[in-house]
């Protein structure tokens, strides 16, 4: 019963968010362009961070190549819309199709990259995924058809508030369902103890690849959304610095903690903008903060929930003790 009602709430939240996003999208021309841009970036970054969280946080596989999948999604969808882009209602359908194609191509690449590299662990996996990300970037840079290093121009501006936040809502909904499913338990088992999971008969490679491919799919979608907002993309926007940026969002939010990662993606997108008045110092502050967080709160700002659980337990214990006394 409890389970069912929780599921219902999640569906309701999904529906309400989509409707609200649709309504807000109608009034978006009234917004201040600068603030609106930041809001869209927040949405894109939330998708990137939440999808990487599935790989890094829930499955415990350290990937540093997320920007590569984002690039693939961005370029694929951009090619499609700039070839088939029509006006009116059809544009929206073409856009949706392009986004999904971008996601699919990215996830196919995720499969190609994932199957060989997920045999590796920890640092090795990090450096190999970083390598694949960079190779993807260099390949795009060498394809003339995609504009090479000059970049791809003339992408129709199709991304609006609705598309970004509808995808945020769908991703959050999917993730919260996924981690409660058999797959989710598999991911967590792989993360917590791979050897034990293997011994229990879990096909660890399969679960890792599934997490990786799903993560790549949403990175591709995020790339498509980003491309159709900025209307100009070039390979250097998708370098490993971008991947590290996404990883930092996941780590700071707390690996495997959906809400934490959501909040940290929001904060870490706004923070550099808020620090713009002291522009020279902002990245120094940012990096220093990262080191301090890692030393003082390695589980991320919002933790893995353990901290709050302990707090709650000690509070309950105190209540019980005081009751016993009286």
């Amino acid at each position, binding site marked *: 019963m409890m389970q069912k009602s929780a599921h219902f709430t999640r569906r309701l939240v999904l529906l309400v968010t989509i409707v609200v996003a649709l309504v807000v999208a109608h009034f978006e021309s009234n917004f201040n362009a600068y603030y609106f841009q930041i809001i869209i970036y927040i949405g894109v970054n939330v998708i990137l961070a939440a999808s990487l969280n599935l790989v890094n946080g829930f499955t415990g596989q350290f990937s540093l190549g997320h920007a590569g999948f984002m690039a693939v999604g961005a370029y694929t969808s951009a090619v499609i819309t700039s070839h088939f882009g029509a006006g009116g209602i059809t544009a929206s359908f073409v856009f949706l199709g392009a986004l999904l194609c971008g996601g699919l191509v990215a996830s196919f690449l995720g499969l190609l990259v994932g199957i060989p590299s997920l045999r590796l662990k920890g640092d090795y996996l990090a450096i190999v995924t970083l390598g694949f990300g960079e190779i993807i970037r260099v390949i795009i840079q060498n394809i003339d058809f995609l504009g090479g290093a000059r970049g791809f121009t003339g992408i129709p501006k199709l991304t609006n508030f609705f598309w970004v936040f509808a995808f945020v809502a769908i991703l959050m909904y999917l993730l919260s369902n996924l981690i409660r499913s058999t797959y989710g338990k598999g991911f967590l088992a792989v993360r917590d103890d791979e050897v034990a999971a293997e011994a229990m008969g879990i096909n660890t490679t399969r679960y890792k690849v599934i997490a990786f491919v799903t993560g790549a799919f949403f990175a591709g979608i995020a790339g498509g959304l980003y491309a159709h907002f900025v209307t100009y993309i070039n390979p250097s926007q998708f370098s490993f610095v971008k991947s*590290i940026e996404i990883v930092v969002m996941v780590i700071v939010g707390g690996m495997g903690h959906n809400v934490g990662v959501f909040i940290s993606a929001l904060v870490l997108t706004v923070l550099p903008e808020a620090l713009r008045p002291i522009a020279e110092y902002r990245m120094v502050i940012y990096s*220093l903060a990262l080191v301090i967080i890692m030393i003082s709160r390695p589980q991320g700002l919002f933790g893995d929930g353990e901290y709050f659980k302990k707090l709650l337990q000690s509070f309950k214990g105190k209540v019980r003790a005081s009751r016993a006394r009286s």
Partner: protein
Amino acid sequence: MSEFIQQVINGVSLGSIYALIALGYTMVYGILRFINFAHSDIFMIGAFVAYFAAPMILKLCGGNLFLAGPLAMVLSMLVCSALGVTIEKLAYKPLRSRPTITVLITAIGVSFFLEYGGQLVFGPDPKPFPDLIPKANVIDAGGVVVSSTPLMVIGTAIGLMLLLRWVVMSTKTGTAMRALSFNLQAAKLMGININRIVSFTFVLGSSLAAAAAVLYASVYPSINPLMGVFPGLKAFIAAVVGGIGNLVGAALGGLIIGITETFVTGYISATYRDAIAFGILIVILLFRPAGLLGKFESERV
């Protein structure tokens, strides 16, 4: 044919620079099991120390490059050693018993701090690196022109590597280092002062990176705060290709990456330059996950 010989010499010279940086990665990884991402930025700082000290040193030596070059290099090695040890004490030591990912992210944080701190202090624009190594055409026969720079680079690198080999294989501290990389806990039980040896490892690694930086900046005389990123990544790849934790492997990996990169740039296309190292890495990891000279260990529960 003459072009080929030049390419080989340039490749070996670039490769020996990568090898010097790779040694720092491989030593830290061998003992503490994490990628010290900040190593590439210590390399960058090394170049800047030499850049700022060069005018004074050149004046002191009366323009004698055979004196000024080594002096600048030693100074930069000293400063970088101090920096490396400071970073280890402040950022990595508190995390020694934590999971690898935590240390890795901290290392990335330190790396960003040095890069953006560098942009703040030195300015983001590239700066011309002064001549600290004598430049002349040593060999000029049959169309083959060999400048002294790559030969000096190769010579210095070989000298430093032999020195390192002596330190690691024949001194007491070196023996302790090897003990640590073999089994940290057992080494501790044998009464080895872990903190002192780890600091010493950072001294060795950072000073090799500084030496590599002075050599690199002499070959490509334009330095900026982000100059360490790609040489650092490629050197790390060199360490993995050779078998991480293995000193000879790091040198071998450096040479392979350096030579391949020079040949790809020279004969195929310069745009693939930065991807080629990753390509080699992926191939090696798929067929020999422990690297060319590494020993494969199966996981123990």
